[in-house]
């Protein structure tokens, strides 16, 4: 268990469950055009068909479009936005936190104040404002999510850089006369990265939730059928067609749950002190 590269997967049932669910979702997203019974935008049947009738496994919507196909295609939007926004937030967080931790002193102070501000303000209000001002699109959604998601990453990156700054291998590099940026990038960063990546992986779940809320409010890319958008459409007719809201919502929950399970499993794996101890 300890030495196999997949050992960590088996090390915890949470990680295993998360990995399986997530792998399933990725396969669905990649194979969407092949496995999806219909095009999500095509009107292929009667409107308001309940689940399990007329060939609709999960029912049809107000225009007779297939809910199942919408969910299958929606997985692409959710996973892509979640991943892209997290990578962008990771980049911002690493730069801000890394610079703050590496230089410390005044730079650190100023950057941490900025981080604090971004952590305090109602981030969702800022996110929807950004999307609205810069017009709804995939790019504006990803940017808005990244802009509000980087602070926790920056704080952790700062802490890691601060902690590693005075270690022996860094002192050795300093006395060898290597330039600061080189030390930061080649010595500190690789060692600081693992916990930051784990935190960022949990950020994918938050990003998916944010994307779904933005789309739910009708601010997503109008050309993409995402899960949040489907629920936003379904909510006005929830009394007549519960399936239009329920199934896409379950899809979001499964995706978020999968990532949270995986992230927590990884977290337990890299901080063994907490393993089996106090965690819910």
């Amino acid at each position, binding site marked *: 268990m300890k030495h196999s590269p997949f050992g960590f997967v088996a090390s915890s049932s949470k990680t295993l469950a998360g990995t399986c669910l997530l792998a399933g979702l990725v396969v669905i997203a990649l194979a969407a055009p092949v496995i999806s019974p219909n095009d999500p935008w095509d009107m292929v049947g009667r409107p308001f068909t309940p689940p399990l009738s007329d060939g609709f496994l999960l029912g049809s919507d107000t225009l007779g479009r297939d809910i199942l196909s919408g969910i299958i295609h929606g997985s692409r939007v959710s996973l892509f936005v979640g991943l892209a926004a997290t990578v962008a937030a990771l980049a911002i967080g690493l730069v801000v936190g890394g610079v703050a931790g590496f230089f410390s002193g005044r730079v650190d102070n100023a950057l941490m*104040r900025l981080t*604090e*501000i971004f*952590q*305090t*303000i*109602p*981030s*969702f*209000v*800022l996110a*929807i*404002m*950004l999307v*609205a*001002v*810069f*017009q709804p699109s995939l790019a504006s959604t990803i940017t808005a999510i990244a802009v509000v998601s980087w602070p926790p990453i920056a704080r952790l990156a700062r802490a890691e850089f601060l902690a590693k700054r005075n270690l022996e291998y860094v002192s050795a590099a300093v006395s060898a006369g290597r330039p600061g940026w080189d030390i930061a990038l080649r010595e500190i960063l690789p060692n600081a990265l693992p916990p930051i990546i784990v935190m960022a992986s949990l950020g994918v*779940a938050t990003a998916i*939730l944010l994307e*779904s*809320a933005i789309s*739910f*409010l*009708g*601010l997503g890319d109008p050309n993409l059928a995402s899960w*949040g958008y489907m*629920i936003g459409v379904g*909510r006005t007719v*929830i*009394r007549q067609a*519960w399936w239009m*809201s*329920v199934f896409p*919502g379950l899809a*979001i*929950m*499964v995706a*978020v*749950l999968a990532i*949270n*399970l995986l992230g927590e499993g990884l977290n337990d794996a890299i901080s063994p002190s907490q393993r089996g*101890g*106090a*965690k*819910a």
Partner: protein
Amino acid sequence: MRTAISTLRLLSQALLIILAVSLINFALVRLAPGDPASVLAGQSGAADELYLAQLREQFGLDQPILVQLGKYYLQLLQFDLGYSYRQQLPVVNLIAERLPNTLLLTLSAFAIALILGVAFGVAAALNRDNWIDTAVGTAAMVLYASPVFFTGLMLILVFSVFLGWFPAFGSETIGADYGFIGQVADRLKYLVLPAVTLSLLYAATYTRLTRTAMLDVLQMDYVKLARAKGLPPFRIVGAHVLRNALLPVITIAGMQAGHLVGGAVVVETVFAWPGIGRLAFDALLQRDYPVLMGVFLISSIMVVFFNIITDLAYKVFDPTMEVS
């Protein structure tokens, strides 16, 4: 003296937040695609020339950026958050009218989350690793993964559509003529679903936090001592454990105040709750930017206000800290 310093620190933090948020608003108007005047008018090109000219004059839009900034802050200092051309009303009035509803919703949600979170967290910790613990942990995990609007819709589906217990939309029965008590009961009935919806996500977080903190504290020597002295379990939990276990919950609650206010936007939209979140959503659909920015500023001030409250609460509960 220490109290004065900590109050000063809080105030400076509050000022910094307000400064930052107003700067973001200022920058957004000028970074948005198109003419800043038409952004301020919120009409995407449809506002009449006269009004646009008036806006340019008022905000100094054809003058250097520093002059614009000066004019902007001069207006803010007079509590002028701009004018909604759509609604033909000052933004301040629109927000002031709806702010009490949002405060009612967020504070109720916060109270419910705290009660549920602490209760379930304590129950899980005291029943560590048996079925109660597992059930609470699973429920918290599922709730934590549910988008707040979805939780709301599911509650509407169950408690409003199927069971018919609570109304799904609005904040009070319109045109009803109740006495005072009847009116309070009526408003409570409308408050239940939105407040519970908003609370559940945080209840999940607080449950996990309380459980973790409880388990930590239960292993402390002073708890063992209390047990050895033969104190009844409820006294130990109440007097020794819970007080310490609450501290991380309060800390996180303060840090999440911004999320709570953001969540209110979504919940108010789902339940047609007439607060500033619903106002923001309507403004969003109409691209009424002055209203949006006003909501952003005021909701940020709300967060600062929540932070001050949690800071005070921390001081009340922390046995080791007097007033630092």
